[in-house]
């Protein structure tokens, strides 16, 4: 009598959990059972050959006795359906006092475990019905798992495509920037050289107005050279000398230099853990990374605020790099984190903040700070994490590989 309701309850949803949930609810409610657990073979979930199985869904969960078995052949003897007619009781075993338990195959994908407080097993006819309903659920779940697999695959493919697009964009911008920087450098060399010559020619001749013009040309040229240097850094055009260093030294030095320039309204504190292993890096470049992140944090703070800098040796689980978007496997890193308690970063800014020339600072910003950080960190074999919450603040973490001694 209940078969119709049970059969209709499955297959109305593509989510395997919802199918199990509905099936279990009806089974428990109409059949007066006290527990229903769905076990799925590991090989269905992982695609690898295995004799193990896992508890996929149980109602009520708190009555589940275990959640995984290694050997399904002994735990769930896969009785053919014809056995039911010979001996109904084979399906049942004593679970606890006054309780019986049954195991029914869930098609080819797993098993259903049932428990019930009743004096005697289910009648044969009911058991046959349950076997049929379980078989139908099995085939529905198989389809639902396949659908989930497709969804997962599509998500992974989308993520990979996004990574590829980001990498191609960064590379193209890098090449463009590198090319421009190279040509621009030649022009700047001429400008600076001729400005210098002009100053020399002027010598002691008293022409203060002309002298100030030439100084302005020279100053602007030097500024232009700095921009070019940043572009070359982003474009991986610079190769610096590196050693196994303790990054605390350049970072603490940077903090010491920056502190007086921030004003009284912003408090900057550095927290360097003991025993942080060395990284293979360049002191100046680490200082440059720290400087850029601290300047950004300072600019994000409107009036009063705090900037905290942490240097730690950490175990970082799997994550996606915030700038190159690649998936990074779990490992130990040396972490340089700069945390502020400003207003956080909105999603639109997050999407573009590592692009060169992208700035939220108006005409005053070059838009090269974070792209320089991106370039330097990745040249060091590192990655970036950004944790931000609107209204709460942001933390930029530079993760650098530990140098193997």
């Amino acid at each position, binding site marked *: *009598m*209940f078969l*119709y*309701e049970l059969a*209709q*309850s499955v297959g109305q949803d593509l989510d395997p959990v919802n199918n199990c949930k509905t099936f279990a*609810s*009806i089974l*428990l*409610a*109409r*059949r*007066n*059972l*006290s*527990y229903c657990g769905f076990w799925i073979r590991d090989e269905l979930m992982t695609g690898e050959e295995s004799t193990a199985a896992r508890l996929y869904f149980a*109602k*009520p*969960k*708190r*009555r589940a006795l275990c959640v995984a078995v290694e050997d399904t052949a002994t735990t769930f003897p896969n009785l053919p359906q014809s056995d039911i007619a010979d001996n109904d009781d084979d399906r049942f075993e004593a679970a606890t006092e006054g309780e019986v338990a049954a195991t029914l195959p869930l098609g080819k994908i797993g098993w259903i475990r049932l428990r019930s*407080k*009743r004096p005697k097993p289910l009648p044969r006819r*009911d058991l046959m019905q349950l076997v049929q309903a379980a078989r139908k659920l099995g085939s529905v779940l198989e389809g639902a798992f396949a659908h989930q697999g497709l969804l997962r695959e599509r998500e992974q493919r989308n993520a990979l495509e996004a990574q590829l697009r980001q990498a191609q964009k960064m590379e193209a911008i890098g090449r463009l920037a590198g090319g421009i920087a190279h040509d621009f450098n030649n022009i700047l060399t001429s400008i600076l050289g001729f400005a210098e010559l002009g100053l020399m020619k002027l010598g002691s001749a008293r022409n203060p107005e002309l002298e100030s013009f030439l100084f302005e040309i020279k100053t602007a040229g030097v500024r232009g050279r700095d921009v070019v240097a940043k572009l070359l850094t982003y474009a991986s055009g610079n190769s610096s000398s590196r050693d196994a260093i303790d990054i605390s030294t350049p970072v603490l030095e940077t903090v010491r230099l920056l502190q007086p320039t921030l004003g009284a309204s912003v408090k900057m504190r550095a927290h360097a853990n003991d025993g942080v292993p060395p990284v293979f890096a360049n002191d100046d470049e680490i200082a440059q990374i720290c400087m850029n992140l601290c300047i950004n944090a300072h600019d994000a703070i409107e009036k009063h605020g705090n900037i905290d800098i942490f240097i730690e040796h950490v175990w970082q689980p799997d994550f996606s790099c915030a700038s190159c978007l690649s998936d990074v496997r779990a490992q130990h890193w040396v972490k340089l984190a700069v945390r502020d308690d400003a207003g956080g970063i909105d999603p639109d800014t997050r999407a573009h903040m590592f692009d060169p020339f992208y700035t939220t600072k108006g005409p005053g910003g070059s838009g090269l700070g974070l792209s320089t950080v991106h370039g330097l960190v990745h040249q060091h074999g590192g990655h970036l994490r950004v944790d931000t919450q609107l209204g709460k603040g942001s933390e930029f973490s530079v993760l650098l590989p530990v140098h193997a001694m």
Partner: protein
Amino acid sequence: MYCSFESAEQLARDAAALATDDNHLLVIFLARAHADALEDIVAALNARGQQFVGGVFPGLIDGPERRDEGFIVHAFRCLAAPVVARLNDGVGWLSKPPPAEGADTSPTLMCLVDFLSSNTTQLLEDLFERYGNDVNYFGAGCGHATREPQPVVFSQDGVFGNAAVVVLLEHHGNVTVRHGWNRKDGPFVATRAEGNVVLELDWEPAVDVYRRALGESLPAEVDTPEALGAAKRFPFGISKEGAEDVVRDPLFFTEDGKGLTCLSAIPENCVLHILTAAPEDLMDAVAQAAGDLRESNSGDARHCLVFDCFSRVTLLADDFNAELAKVTEQVAPLAGGVAPQGALALGEIASDGERLPEFHNKTMAVALLHG
């Protein structure tokens, strides 16, 4: 203890006198005649620093007597402070339900729920998921028989509508639920149902099938009080293996005259029967309930609570007082002579945790609480 109601302050004073222990919690059943004073009652009890839960009911049961006024209050030892679940959209707990730990024997979970809520089934599934067979479940639907949406359950957190209050009582309970209804016609499959409304039976408009099954018993016009009165005498029963059918009380016909709205959810594709009962069948439920309790009772019960469906008052008419007298006569001896007290409920809950707790209609739920 039954008390007449004079004021919120008097209720708080009388109730507080029962709470002699720090972990005593007051369970209050308030007659709907005093529902206007609910806010004041909560304030007065809170002013005394009491832990309490309660509900508004269409009537009260005080041993063999039915009361339309006053309140019933009991002090029970509780395992944790009561929790409130809002049922507007699924089940939203205001605070995390506590674990059922700290009692020597399995405790009793008492649940008072607004009977108008459409998420009662979800609530009971949620509770079963959390507590399984670690507890016995006992409770009732509260509200006004007029079906006006109003705040009807309360605790120290306030008064709530479309919500439930849940508390774990330290007392072990023997619980049972019985109705006495018999199958008249069926089986039918609810081929289309939405929440509490059964729209189709066996792929036909539900009312057509219902009318065919009842023949002359159902007047031709379905939107008349007579038709509704007839429907009350022929509820639906959801089939359940090895147990009495779960009764679903038809409340009214849908506007198009094709569907029937019931007191609680009718799952789509479930198997139904149309039920009927003579007054003596309904009263047999008392003997059946007493029999269940006699079988499971360990003999040291000190409290006896009863929730009898409000619709049974109409169905049994003058016999209803006889039913209450029978309950007292048969159940009180199992509770050391303590007369059963409780309320006329709008839905009943009773389960030993070995099966999904259900929200029953037109039944009588009885609990013996020990220690």
